[in-house]
């Protein structure tokens, strides 16, 4: 595991950059655990102060210090992304491995359901959920809903790998040795799909955080919970750019671009690592 990591850092500049960017964001986000005040409180500082030695990122029109506000927002958004990614990974691994290995009608039924989930447009449904739940829509509920929609592409990918593993020698040995289906899937096949799971994990985080931002800037989430999206929502509803509080928009935008680029680069370099051909090309072999 460690040597893989070392090779990636040594030969893959994208991975290194991505790792650094995500690392900075994780450190920044975890600072909110040491925040001197509750990030949901307003009018705790002088409003509309530009960045200075006292207020590193300035303060917004709601009297919040942007540094602590953004730190909490990124913590919440990253945790949200991780929650969605973990939950939907569990579904996609289960469905993908079962469909690929068991085959037959199990495969057909699962893939039929999969096709439906691929084709159902998720955004109107999310809006509908918000419309119906309103004040009960907390971020965990939203994570659950997103996880229900975030698995189908990756399940297909895992299924295609599992289909290949099914006919390999070691699978037959395991079956003849009397291993149960569950054991074959968990102990024999799961390690082979783990690299794919890591790569899709990043992609899924990107997707879910992006969805949250999309919903939040329209005001379709709990807007009092600081997240990347709600920070933008408030900045926009106070017309921050027009009244000249530029740091309220510019600083979050820079941080968001850093986060998304970092996660994206990690996902890309992981994908590349999984494909041995491109790995060889990169190492100059």
């Amino acid at each position, binding site marked *: 595991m460690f040597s893989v990591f070392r090779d990636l850092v040594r030969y893959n500049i994208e991975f290194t950059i991505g790792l650094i960017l995500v690392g900075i964001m994780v450190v920044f986000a975890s600072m909110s655990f040491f925040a001197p005040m509750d990030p949901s409180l307003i009018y705790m500082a002088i409003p509309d102060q530009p960045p200075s030695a006292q207020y590193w990122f300035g303060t917004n029109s709601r009297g919040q210090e942007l540094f602590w506000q953004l730190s909490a927002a990124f913590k919440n958004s990253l945790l949200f992304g991780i929650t969605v990614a973990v939950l939907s990974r569990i579904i996609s691994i289960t469905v993908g491995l079962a469909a690929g290995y068991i085959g037959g009608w199990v495969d057909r039924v699962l893939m039929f359901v999969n096709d*439906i989930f691929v*084709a*159902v447009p998720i955004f109107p449904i999310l809006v509908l959920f918000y419309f119906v739940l309103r004040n009960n829509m907390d971020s965990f509920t939203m994570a659950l809903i997103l996880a229900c929609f975030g698995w189908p592409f990756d399940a297909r990918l895992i299924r295609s790998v599992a289909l290949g593993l099914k006919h390999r020698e070691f699978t037959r040995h395991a079956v003849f040795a009397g291993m149960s289906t569950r054991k074959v899937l968990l102990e024999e096949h799961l390690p082979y799909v783990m690299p794919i799971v890591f790569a899709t994990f990043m992609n899924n985080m990107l997707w879910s955080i992006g969805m949250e931002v*999309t919903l939040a800037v329209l005001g379709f989430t709990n807007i009092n919970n600081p997240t990347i999206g709600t920070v933008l929502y408030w900045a926009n509803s106070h017309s921050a750019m027009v009244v000249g509080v530029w740091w309220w928009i510019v600083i979050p935008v820079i941080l*968001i671009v850093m986060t998304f680029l970092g996660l994206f680069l990690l996902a890309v370099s992981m994908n590349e690592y999984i494909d041995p051909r491109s790995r060889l090309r990169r190492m100059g072999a």
Partner: protein
Amino acid sequence: MHSYLWFAGKRLLQLLAVIFFGVSAMFFVTYLSPIDPVEQVLGRLSARSNLSPEAIASTREALTAMFGTDQPMMTQYFNFWTRVLRGDLGASLMAFPTPAMELVMRGMPWTLGLLLTSTFITFVIGNVMGGLAGYFQNNRFFKAFGIVAMGIQPIPYYIVAFIILIIFGFLWPVLPISGGFGMDVRPALTLPFILSVLQHSLLPALSLVLVGLGGWFIGMRALVSNIVTEDYVTYAELAGVKRSTVVGGYVMRNALVPQITALAMVIGGVFSGTIITEQVFNYPGMGSLLVDAVNAGDYSTVLAVCTVSITAVATAIFIVDLLHPLLDPRVRAE
């Protein structure tokens, strides 16, 4: 031909299943919700005028009969489907008594026009540039283009739209940043109106194109750089086939097949993009309608927009899927 019909039939069944499950899910979400459409309407009515308790009671009765909320679940579910199939989802609450479907139909040409053109432009530019970048791997221009396109791609759509708004709204105001057409023209099929519509659609379309470009670029470049190493390409080059024929006819053409499949998936996701576009650029369309309806608590309009968008996206994916085997001989043979 027979196998193609079989394929098309299977896809059609799937389309119907998607619409059926999508719309059913919508019904159950709203059925199980604590929001009662009757109380919603009553709340709006009594907020506007002073109703006597008797009037409220009789209105409630009439509305309950209209929405059928007192009936058992399966009857309501059945009624819901008959209304959906007739294209009638009740009167809009925020523009009472305009039917919600009429509002949707008014917004649809704007959304479809913006969505279809920008998706088409993105597809063409992204694939051509990606294909060329995959073929001419050491060309500086394509490399630079790739870095820019890939850098924009992972950024959330809203941010890109907002940056465009800042640039063209405040720093370099040459294009209209809001609305579907100018205040000085009247909506009619005249040249000034059409020009105004085109002018107003430039920035929203630009934002959609910028965000979508990277995905196509990366996909096409990867596909082409794999195809370039195939024997038949080397063979054609050695045999002295014209460069343009090799790139266009042999390499790009073959790489395009999986990209067409990807088009179906992109269409599915693009709808959420247009909602934000319409909101940011204040563009008339289904997205703005949906946002207004949610904020106004307009029950029937929200349902109508969701039903139409689910049907539209599923149908678009269906059409792309039908085109796929016509391009790919391997699928046709199956």
